[in-house]
Each structure stands twice: as C-alpha cells, then as structure tokens.
C-alpha cells in the first residue's frame, strides 16, 4: 500500500511529482551502491577520498534538491517547506547520508542565510549554495561541548575589518567536502550564550583545515569530520547577524535542521516497514508466512503507528513554516518522536528479519545504525523532552526574533 497517500490536507500534486522524482533518483543512483558505500566508511582511514560523496552531491545539485525551498531569485527551486520534508523523507528512505546533506547544506546553513543573511551575503554565498555550485556546512559542536553550546571555546577576536577565528569544531557533517561553513565562536568569552557570534568561513581561507572522523556507528556512506581554525581572518562582512546574536541564530538554524532530521527519520521508518512487509510475506516459518504470526503483526502495526504519527507531526511543523509561524515546539516534538520511533522501527525490522537482519545482506541493520545518531545530534532526545515539558509548564515561550524565517510565498518565490 501507499503510505504517503491521503495527506492532501498538506500536500499538493507538485509534492507528489517531487516525491516520485526524488524516489527515482535515490533508487536508481544510490540504492544499487549503498551497501558498498556504507561498508567503505567502516574501513576508511586517512583523509576523505571516496568519490561517491562528491558525485552524489553534484547530482543532487543538478536536480535542484539543494535549493528546494528557496525562491528562484536566490537560485532555488521555489518550492515550499513541505517540499523540503518530502525530499528528506525520500532520501533517507534509501540512506541517511543523503538526508544529512539536506540537513546541513540546505537547512542549517542555507536557510539560516535566508533568514539572517544580508543581501550581499545572500548574493555571494546563498545563491551558489542554492544552485548546488557550492556546498555548505554548519559548525557549532566542539570536542568539549555539544548541547551546552554556551561553553564553547572557539573565539573570534576583532582586528580592524576582520575577525581572527581560533578553535576546533567536531562532528561536522561534510567537514571535508563543504566550501562554506557557518561557524559559531565567542566574540566575548566572558559571556555564555550571549557572547557567541556567527560567521561565514570559506575553506580556502588561510588557517582552515579539516579531517574526517573514522569508526562511526552509522551514516558511514557520508563524510563527518572535524574543522580546525587557526588564526583564520574572516571579513567583518561575513558576520551573520549582530555580535552576540550567534546563539539565537544557532537555535533558529536548529528549528530547520531538526525539521529535516524528523522528516528523514519518517522516511527511515517507512523503509523499515517496507522491508519488513516484504520479508514477512516471503519468509515461511511453521508452515505459514511470518506475516501470519500475531507477534510479527504487532511489530508491523507499531511501525505503521510510528510512521503516520511522525509524518503528521512533521507536516504540521512544515505547514507552520509555510505560514511563517514560529514552530520550535512543534519541530522539536516531531524530531524527538520521529527519531526515537525510527530507531525502534529499525530494531523491530531486524527482529522480523531474524538472523538475516543482523548482517548487511539486508538493509535493516544499516537503518538501525543510521537511526541511532539522530537521537543525539541536533538536539538530544533528553533536550527535546525538557523543551516539551517547559513549553507545557509555561516555563518557556517563543520570544519574537529580530529576523523570522520568511513565510512561503508561491508568487514571490516562483
């Protein structure tokens, strides 16, 4: 059955055509190679040299996926924020490394420039990124701080028309691939969150270097690494927002990043469910297909529940983005629910596959490994839980921002 049917309250015929196109791309150009690419990440050593990463990014750029929800005047495809969710679902249905590109390049970096960037920054950086000519990443986490961003050690010292950046960022997706980076560093180290500012850093700037992280549990087909900044001179024109506004910018970026993670996790649930349905119908035990055993049915039905609830939460958040409404609560809820559900769904999918599911002869063990990271990155499960409680208890509210993410405008964006 078609698990994407009957979402007409959110999706149009455009979204359906988009879904078909992205699915065709992922199934034709990635799925046949993904086991090999995933294995390559388990054994790689030294610098990132795997050509498939560059090839896939190039194809995603050519197809227009990298600027999917940006206006055409900024080099995008002029589609809405729900289209971004559809793309993420379909990409992660095949492999998480594809969706990670949408999270860091499109959501965390490009949408942040769309929301906070100056006209000059949008012309210089956003347009080539939307067209896929330049690849972008996002650098917040450091070796000693993840969720506790206020504890970061990276610094940006003003020197005339420049800032001098020093520090180390880690767990950076596309660290060795991207051309442009949004880097968060302290312009006032005496302050916590309020001392953070945001900068556009180019790989070609002297003092910039990167190296990959080896031995990851999941997302092995993609590149993750560390970024080192040693006296990197960044023009003042490359500061995004005001001095000290970096933390707010980082958090709004995460409102978009988490949305893509949630949508991707929904795609991963669907992949687990589809693999399980296929296997449960063809594998016989005790003289009947697996699908006729009640406890297998239970696992299938729970996957369906998790799939539909995740998708509805994601589309609600996307609908709010289209309206220009703040969606921190709704997006974090979607991210929490969908990522936790995706891990559980992949786990059940392995159970249904039995011992076959434990090897990479079937894709479900890869789904499980890929799902695990998203319960940590872009806001841990625990952080999302606290946020929900604080919103419910009235301890937290969305304060107005100096710049909001623009609402979708079909005429202006076309």
């Amino acid at each position, binding site marked *: *059955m*078609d698990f994407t049917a009957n979402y007409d309250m959110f999706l149009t015929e455009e979204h359906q*055509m988009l879904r078909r*196109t992205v699915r065709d791309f992922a199934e034709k150009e990635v799925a046949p190679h993904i086991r090999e690419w995933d294995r390559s990440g388990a054994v790689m050593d030294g610098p990132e040299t795997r050509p498939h990463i560059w090839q896939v990014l190039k194809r995603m750029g050519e197809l227009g996926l990298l600027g999917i929800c940006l206006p055409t005047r900024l080099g995008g*495809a*002029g589609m809405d924020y729900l289209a971004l969710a559809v793309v993420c679902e379909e990409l992660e249905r095949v492999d998480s490394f594809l969706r990670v590109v949408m999270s860091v390049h499109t959501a965390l970096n490009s949408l942040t420039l769309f929301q906070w960037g100056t006209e000059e920054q949008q012309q210089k950086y956003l347009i080539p990124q939307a067209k896929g000519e330049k690849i972008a990443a996002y650098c917040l986490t450091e070796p000693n701080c993840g969720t506790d961003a206020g504890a970061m050690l990276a610094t940006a010292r003003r020197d005339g028309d420049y800032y001098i950046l020093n520090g180390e960022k880690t767990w950076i997706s596309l660290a060795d691939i991207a051309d442009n980076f949004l880097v968060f560093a302290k312009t006032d180290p005496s302050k916590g969150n309020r001392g953070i500012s945001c900068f556009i850093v180019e790989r070609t700037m002297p003092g910039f270097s990167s190296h990959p992280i080896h031995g990851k549990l999941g997302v092995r087909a993609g590149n993750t690494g560390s970024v080192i900044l040693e006296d990197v001179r960044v023009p003042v024109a490359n500061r995004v927002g005001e001095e000290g506004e970096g933390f707010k910018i980082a958090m709004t970026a995460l409102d978009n990043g988490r949305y893509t993670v949630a949508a991707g996790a929904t795609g991963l649930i669907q992949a687990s469910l589809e693999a399980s349905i296929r296997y449960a119908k063809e594998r016989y035990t005790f003289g009947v297909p697996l699908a006729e055993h009640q406890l297998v049915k239970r696992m299938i039905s729970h996957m369906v529940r998790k799939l539909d609830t995740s998708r509805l939460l994601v589309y609600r958040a996307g609908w709010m983005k289209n309206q220009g409404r703040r969606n921190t609560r709704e997006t974090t809820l979607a991210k929490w629910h969908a990522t936790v559900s995706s891990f559980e769904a992949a786990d059940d999918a392995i159970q249904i596959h039995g011992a076959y599911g434990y090897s990479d002869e079937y894709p479900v063990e890869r789904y499980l490994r890929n799902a695990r990271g998203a319960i940590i990155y872009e806001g841990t499960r625990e952080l999302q839980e606290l946020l929900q409680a604080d919103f419910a208890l009235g301890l937290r509210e969305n304060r107005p921002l100096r710049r909001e993410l623009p609402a979708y405008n079909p005429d202006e964006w076309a």
Partner: protein
Amino acid sequence: MHIVVCMKQVPRDNSVKINADLTINADGIEQIMNLFDEYAVEEALQWNEKLGGKVTVLSIGPEDWKEQIRRALAMGATDSLLLSDPAFTKLDTLGAARVAAAAIKKLGDVDLVLCGRNSTDDETGAFAPALARLLGWVQLTYVGKIATLESGKIVAERHLEEVVETVEASLPAVVTVVKGINEPRYPSLLRIRKVAKVEIPTWSAADLGLSAADLTPALNLVNRVPPPPRPKGEIIEGASAAEKVARLVDKLIEAQVI
C-alpha cells in the same frame, strides 16, 4: 518538427487482481508511466532540443489520469493531450489505435509519432503498428537509435534479437523505441511547479468524430486467469557431487533441455 509521443499510464507492478467481470483491479498499486514510453518521451525531447518545434504527449484514459502527463510535461514536453470518454473504457488495442489516429489526424501537422515498443500491462506490442496502418504511415519498430531526423526523413537502427538493421524512411512515420535508446531525465523541479496547474486539453469521442462502431472491440476477452503457480523444484540427491551432476544431466537429457 512536431513530435507526438503516445504515452500510457500503467500499474507499477503486475500484482493486480482480476475482478468478477474480468476487468483488472489495480487498486492500491501506484500508477507510473509505461517504462518504454519514458524512453520515447526522452527521445522526443532530445530531438526537440536540436530541431525545435513541439512535443505533444498524448494519452488515453479517464479524466483523473493526468499525473503521468504532467510528469512528461515536467520532463520538458511542450504540449499535452488527454483523450478521454466514458466510451473509451473498454477499448482493445485496435480501438485505442483508432482513437489515437483520429487525434493525430486532427492535430494535422504531426511529423513523427514515438511510442514505447509495448506497454508493460497489456503487452500486445500491437498499438503502434495498428496506429501506423490506420494513419497510412511507415512504421519503424524496435528502434534503438535514431541517427538522422530532418525534414521529411528519418534514419534509424532497428535493434532486433540477432541483427541491427539501419533503415531509412520518409516522414511522417510511427516509431517504437526499445529500452536503452537513451537515459530518460528526471522531471525538472522548476517545471514541476509550472506544470502542476497547466490545463491539459481533453478530447472526447465526439471531438474526434468517432462513432460507437469505431470503438467496438474486435477482440473479445473470453477469460482472464492468473498463470498457474510455478511447479515445485526438485532437489537431486546423490552420494557425491559427481553422482548428483550425472543424475542432473540424465534428467536434462530426458527433458530434452540438452
């Protein structure tokens, strides 16, 4: 140059059910563009990029079968045409060819018709030849390469099982293409937005001047059943691999396979 592509919407897989009245029940199965027709669309688009003119994608089906037409438009087709009428629901292949031929005649300025070599649902492979016959045009089937296409002339390779034939013909012509003639493109995201609201012209039997007699099937479906399940395999026993192989060879000779 005006190229018409005849495109059929088909179920994605063959796990269809058969209704009591012998019609096909494809409920719940995703509808896609017939695989071979996708190559025909791509071929038309590539020649259109070189020669200019129009590419009209033409399909026969109910009013709501517009998704695949829009897909072809998003790939780059310039025009579309849906032939739809309650009287078209029980067409056989000849009837479908009559409907398409009437539409192509009505369009008037068509130089070339491209079709997939067959549809993946009915698999008759007879639509395009019937269409060519009804139009009185030359037909080039199983084309794996169009080498030349210019005013009034086509040179193409027919990729047959044992040989590749190069044939030349004058236009207008009907051509069926095989898999591998090109690599079909994905719809462009910018075009997806543009074509989502495009009005698709629809012609009925009356618009085409077709009578009930024209649409009466020449072929009557007598029965339709799923093929019998594949017989169970046999495991050949033996003390050693050599003995098993010897027994297998005996059986294959007995079955006149070797």
